[in-house]
């Protein structure tokens, strides 16, 4: 969110660490995300007293306990609804929503959709590990086809949901992608924070117990350059150290990987990223990994009026010039007066 932080508060990473013992499995990608958030918040000048982390249920949703701010660990899938009430009750609060692929895309998919559609001003961090961790390894709505799990011993048959495509389809105005150990995560979080409105960030997260190294094919050092496309507004879509790029196949209206010779990306027809171009965003969120690199960074960022501004603005307008006289309200409509002495009523 927040272009209206009244006073930038000086904090350090330590100030954002709660006294609670962190209970994720050793080596879990959540540790890296927690650290990235705790490192980012001081840089944003965020105030712990004015910050609320709201989560649902799952491994990721334990997150609020470990951040020294206000925190609400709610129930499975419902964090967006709770956050909506918090924000409407106090729009000054800076809200971070923490959810996972099961929490946010499955049981809470409905609420995620409506929070994004309404454009509630908050940051949504969806930790996607493509598995149910806390319930011991069942396949999730983002698991790839054929995922073998206790509930799918023969491999899953349903097609996975694409969180960023879902978010864009739901009307989100900010969509970004990063991964747990990536050094770019703080920058992505900052961009999300500075976007006024619902900022959706999918963070690939390594579940080392039930879905180990699921994202290694683009996060490993050896393949990172050749398999990660970091998007920057106004810059050409280049990867593999500038030797490859993304172009638009104008006949098929699809994206295409092209080789870039001697850095001449213009000659190769590489397109530049425009975070306000929804058509490009549509293609990027659907761009299949494998034939294409993984699209990371800010995919779409085009702010619109926020939900709480609309609701509370309308409320304020409705209140203009009106006095809240309860006595008058109770006596509204057609009344009649009984006078004189009467028998006692029942």
């Amino acid at each position: 969110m927040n272009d209206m932080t009244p006073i930038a508060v000086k904090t350090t990473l330590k100030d954002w660490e709660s006294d609670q013992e962190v209970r994720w499995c050793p080596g879990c990608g959540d540790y890296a995300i927690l650290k990235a958030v705790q490192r980012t918040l001081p840089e944003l000048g965020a105030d712990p007293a004015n910050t609320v982390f709201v989560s649902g249920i799952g491994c990721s949703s334990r997150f609020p306990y470990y951040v020294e701010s206000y925190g609400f660990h709610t129930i499975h899938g419902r964090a967006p609804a709770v956050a909506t009430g918090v924000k409407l009750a106090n729009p000054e609060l800076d809200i971070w929503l923490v959810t996972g692929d099961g929490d946010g895309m499955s049981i809470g998919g409905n609420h995620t959709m409506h929070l994004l559609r309404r454009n509630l001003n908050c940051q949504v961090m969806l930790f996607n590990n493509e598995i149910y961790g806390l319930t011991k390894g069942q396949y999730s709505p983002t698991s790839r086809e054929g995922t073998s799990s206790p509930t799918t011993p023969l491999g899953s048959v349903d097609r996975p949901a694409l969180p960023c495509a879902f978010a864009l389809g739901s009307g989100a105005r900010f969509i970004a992608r990063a991964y747990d150990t990536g050094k770019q995560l703080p920058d992505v979080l900052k961009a999300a924070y500075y976007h006024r409105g619902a900022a959706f960030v999918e963070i690939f997260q390594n579940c080392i117990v039930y879905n180990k190294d699921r994202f290694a094919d683009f996060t490993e050092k050896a393949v990172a350059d050749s398999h990660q496309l970091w998007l920057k507004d106004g810059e050409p879509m280049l990867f593999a150290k500038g030797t490859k790029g993304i172009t638009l196949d104008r006949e098929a209206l699809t994206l295409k990987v092209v080789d870039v010779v001697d850095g001449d990306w213009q000659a190769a027809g590489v397109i530049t990223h425009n975070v306000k171009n929804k058509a490009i965003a549509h293609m990027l969120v659907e761009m299949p990994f494998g034939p294409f690199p993984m699209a990371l960074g800010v995919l779409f960022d085009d702010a619109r009026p926020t939900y709480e501004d609309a609701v509370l603005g309308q409320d304020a307008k409705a209140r203009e010039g009106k006095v809240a006289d309860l006595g008058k309200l109770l006596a509204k409509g057609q009344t009649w007066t009984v006078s004189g002495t009467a028998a006692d009523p029942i």
Partner: protein
Amino acid sequence: MATVLADTDSTAVPGGTPVPEAVVVRFAGDSGDGMQLTGGQFTLSTALAGNDLATFPDFPAEIRAPQGTLFGVSAFQINFGSTSIETAGDAPDVLIAMNPAALKTNLSALKPGGLVIADTGEFTKRNLEKAKYDVSPIDDGSLAKWDVLAFDISALTLESVKPFGLGNKEALRCKNMWTLGLALWMFDRDRAPIVQWLNDKFRKNPVLAEANIAALNAGHAYGETAELAGPLKKLHLDPVPTAPGVYRTVTGAEAVSLGLVAGAQLAELPMFFGGYPITPASAILHNLAKLKEFGVTTFQAEDEIAAICSAIGASYAGQLGVTSSSGPGIALKGEAMGLAIMTELPLVIVNSQRGGPSTGLPTKTEQSDLYQAVYGRNGDAPLPVIAARSPADAFECAIEACRIAVQYMTPVILLTDGYIGNAAEPWAVPDPSAYAPFPAKFLAENNNAEGGKVLPYKRDANGVRPWIKPGTPGLMHRIGGIEKAIDTGDLDYSPVVHQAQTDARKAKIDGVAKGIPDQEVTCGTETGKLVVVGWGSTYGPIIQAVRRARAKGLDVSHVHVRHIWPLPANLGELLKGYERVLVPEMNTGQFKTVLRDQYLVDAKPLNKTSGQPFTIAELEAAIEAALA
């Protein structure tokens, strides 16, 4: 007040020379005929005439059921009189039937000797077939035990609105006002307030206003001229003796809305209302959406779960969170209620009960969500439950629900039902300054005497934790649905902690009983042969049945319970003072089970689940049988 036997004990209107103390009129027509509107305006006129009244709107679940069908009939019953009225009346004295289907579905309720007014214009071959009549009942003598006034209201309406050049369909829509005009004549009512209402309603279309007024006047004039010829008699019922003051009519849904606004004001809190459309609870969301100036924010959520969760979020942030629904929606909210219990946040949950299970009877009334309210959550999840007994009582109950929620940091369920929600009764407009405020307190400074971190779960003498608004400097803490350590609220599910916190949550809710009034005897004596124990909307028929039985010399008393959970501290002792306990309920015996469980009392059930309220006669018979 005065005599107590009035409810529906009148002689039938026609023929009966003495003026009855009360009259029951039922308007019945196709669901597109505007019967609810007609009934509503007749109710207003009745109230303005100073009669006591109770109404019962009874309409189908379909918005526009196929025209002329039996299941598409919509009815509105009103009982009014010059004496105390507590129910909408057992049986109508007058039935106004706008088509054959309306006649067929409502005739059996009509008192012998009662008056049928029927619009013959609608008794066409096709409509008779739709109502499954082979021959018109008007012609075949099957209505012999009633007085019948059958004439072509449709044609008379068309005639009366002719000057306004309306299309046939639009012109016929004025039929309900024609009928209302006739009803106003029958009971000697002033037309002026209705004319004013019509002018207001059709402000943007003065032609329609004039046409409707013309139809109203024509119906009224018809009464004047038909009087000598037919069974129609003009009746004037005197105003009921009433305490001086300003009165208005109020429905339960209105009273709940106003009570919530008053409750939030008394708590000195803005109100956040999260709702989702559902029959018959939506009216509360509609009402509150118009009251922004009272610090109300309404939020139509994406579903019932989001409705309650947003309210919980608002309570967490320091407002009074409220949500409302009916049985199926309340079921969806169950898990979130547990969250509010666990996080110990104030919340008011209104359940306008309807017939169940599942979709059940969306527009009919029932009291079958008592188990759901008292027991219906996972885990040991106690919360206070309050039940309103009438539309006006719903105002007081809503305030009480807000008070307990704020003072005990707990969700509270307020039970009303479809009958209370839609029914109207006269209401002495209360003076807001007569209510004691219960301002909410927020923790502003660290409550840890030893100087460590803030203790969000440190309980006071009543077992209540502090309310801490996010945004308060220095009091950062985390809450959640997971079990928590004593005082600190840190995540902790060790055996000793869960035992202690379960006990603490139970003790807190049990302790609410200390802050509520002792149970009084609603009518009768503190000991005796029989007590009829009721809760919710059965109040009207029970009190009238008990009064009648007592007038006959029977030893029976009435105890009507508002606080369903926890129960009033003295209730067990009180019930032991009677030889027999009878519990009438519009369910299969839910409160009876609670009473048996809590007091080991031999409570006998009397159950009805037809979607219709008890009649006084049914309860009178049960009382006599219980004492036989």
